[in-house]
């Protein structure tokens, strides 16, 4: 269970708590697999999508998750809102709570913004972190773990023996931070692969291995997770050119061939085809990128359900 009432970081979940989310998501998948896609469990409850950064796919995923549980969804995006007129995070959140929100899903460019919302006494709502700056993106890690688990059923309750590579801009990546915490908590070995400029100082305190050499690692991996490279990283001199980055750390056809037979290719999206991942790799039969998107809705349903304590999950789909 998520005892704090919030999902701000993977650290809010014990190992058992993480498996509970994954099991709940699987159960929700089973129920909504047929003709009936919608459950009545959160009927009459209101959740807010509070997005201070553009992220259409994450927002839509949370919205789909909430609607499949019959919750009412208020979408708030910072653009064109009072935030651009200087309204603070605190005032915005309090305003939305006054409109009846019980759970706030927040995406913000500042690390710790979700934690501030949850812990400053500004609001009483549950808070779900949908990505805060360079800190964490816990539901992304949960959907990644869910996807890995579906492909390695022999590791259903223990990821020990799985080796998962996360490749790219570790320094700025909230996806990498959440995955490093979650996957190692579930028992997997995680290796972060990047040029040294994109590995944070202080990474030695993380429960992971570090490599600068993708080719040395690739044949050892059960899953390879490619991170999006932001174009501004190049202008900030983290690496000399896109060409050099793609050569050393991009996932092209040759590297796909070197993967283990059952290894899967993952990407949190949106992809830069031709930079961190080639089109043929993204579309190859190893790629589970679209499964990740589908699973994202399921784990977000599970998180909303577990946090808001909806009525019991029906064992069969029901009409609402």
């Amino acid at each position, binding site marked *: 269970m998520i005892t704090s009432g919030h999902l701000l970081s993977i650290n809010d979940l014990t190992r058992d708590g993480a498996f509970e989310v994954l099991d709940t998501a699987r159960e929700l998948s089973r129920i909504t697999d047929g003709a009936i896609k919608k459950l009545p469990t959160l009927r009459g409850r209101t959740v807010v999508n509070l997005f201070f950064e553009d992220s259409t796919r994450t927002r839509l995923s949370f919205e789909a998750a909430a609607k499949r549980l019959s919750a009412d969804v208020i979408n708030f995006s910072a653009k064109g809102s009072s935030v651009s007129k200087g309204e*603070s995070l605190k005032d915005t959140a309090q305003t939305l709570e006054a409109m009846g929100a019980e759970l706030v899903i927040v995406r913000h*460019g*500042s*690390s*710790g913004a979700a934690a501030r919302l949850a*812990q400053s006494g500004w609001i009483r709502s549950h808070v779900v972190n949908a990505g805060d700056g360079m*800190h*964490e993106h816990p539901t992304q890690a949960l959907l990644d773990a869910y996807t890995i688990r579906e492909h390695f059923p022999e590791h259903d309750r223990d990821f020990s023996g799985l080796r998962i590579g996360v490749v790219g801009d570790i320094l700025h990546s909230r996806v990498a931070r959440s995955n490093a915490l979650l996957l190692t908590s579930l028992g997997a070995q995680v290796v972060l692969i990047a040029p040294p400029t994109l590995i944070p100082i202080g990474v030695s*305190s993380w429960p992971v291995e570090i490599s600068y050499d993708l080719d040395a690692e690739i044949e050892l991996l059960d899953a390879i997770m490619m991170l999006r490279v932001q174009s501004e990283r190049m202008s900030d001199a983290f690496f000399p050119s896109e060409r050099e980055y793609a050569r050393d750390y991009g996932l092209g056809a040759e590297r796909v061939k070197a993967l283990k037979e059952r290894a899967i290719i993952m990407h949190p999206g949106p992809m830069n085809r031709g930079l961190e991942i080639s089109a043929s790799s993204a579309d190859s039969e190893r790629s589970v990128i679209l499964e990740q998107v589908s699973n994202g809705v399921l784990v977000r349903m599970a998180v909303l359900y577990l946090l808001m304590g909806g009525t019991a999950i029906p064992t069969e789909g029901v009409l609402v």
Partner: protein
Amino acid sequence: MKEVRLADSEVVDVEIRGGIISAISTKITSDLPTLDGRGVLLLPGLVDLHTHLREPGKESSETVLSGSQAAVKGGYTAVSAMANTSPVADTAGVVEQVARLGAKAGLCDVFPIGAVTVGLLGEQLAELSAMADSAAGVRIFSDDGRCVSDPLLMRRALEYVKSFNGVIAQHAQDPILTAGAQMNEGAVSSRLGLQGWPAIAEESIIARDILLANYVQSRLHICHLTTKGGVEIVRWAKSQGMAVTAEVTPHHLLLTEDLAERYDPIYKVNPPLRTHEDVEALRAGLADGTIDIVATDHAPHPAEDKDCEWNAAAFGMTGLETAFSVVNTVMVQSGKMDWQTLVERMSAKPAEIGGYKDHGRIAVGSLANLILVDPTKQWKVDRSKMLSRSSNTPFHDLTFTGEVLHTFYRGVHVMRDGQLTGLKHE
């Protein structure tokens, strides 16, 4: 004052007449009102070389008057008003205005610090000589809040102030190595996803400026030292006989980076809180004299600048009202420093660096800028009871040992038993 103990443990009577210490002796018979000094310590008034009073421009955070009140409460009889006001204190006109406001408040000496460069922009030297010659008599120059990062400009500034025995107080922070930085770079920043502020961004400027100052044979003062490496560089420079002085803040003597864990920006400060190892090095450096003085870097901010997400929050902490107690608790009560050393670090040496002749000593014939402290009294910090106009203290709810009970400014009893008296110096 009857039977009062001095920092060297001697117990004496002290007579103040006409604002001047008129007698110090084991037994004085006087017709003046007396104060029982038993159980308390008499120290020279504290001197702060690094105070943000925010006036002109940010009177919602602090004014020269409210800052002076906070200073008196904390046992300071002299503060040095940093130049990053609005307008910037980069002309004779602005520094004279600040000095006038200080005199009008009349609670402690307010010595303006002049900006090194016009508008703190780091491009062109401000009129340093005009500020030195003004009624404010500025001797300390600093772009604090920003680093004079251009090495040639820094060289020129160091050279230029030699003609009037000025000193450049450098805010050592390489701006390129710290672009967007939010907290100390290390394990904690990597975990919290806050942009790292590497120790080397401070240390590289310290090393460079020590070499520059020595090369042109001028005086350099390093503001708010925070790293172990910085302490070692200053220690080396002093061993070579170089003319460098350095300060440390009370908060860097006590608090560490781990406090950022919950993203509460009350702990957001420039330079950032560092590691436990750094704190230990700062304490050792202050005890052995590598670090010459304690300075508060009192930086008041309105509530809305801290009641927000970390990245949006302002850097800075208040400190005038807690400095003595923090230093007493961390350094004296722990046995790292004696009372005479505390006086040296918080009063005598800062007065010497600033050229504040009426401060830093207790001697017959000198102005009575004095404090009486209870060295063992425990008290809990309550941010709602601060005299500063702002309440961004990181020490709220912490209990410290030692409290300032009385402050005398030019012989006027401006604080009595912890309460400001409302008396003003004529």
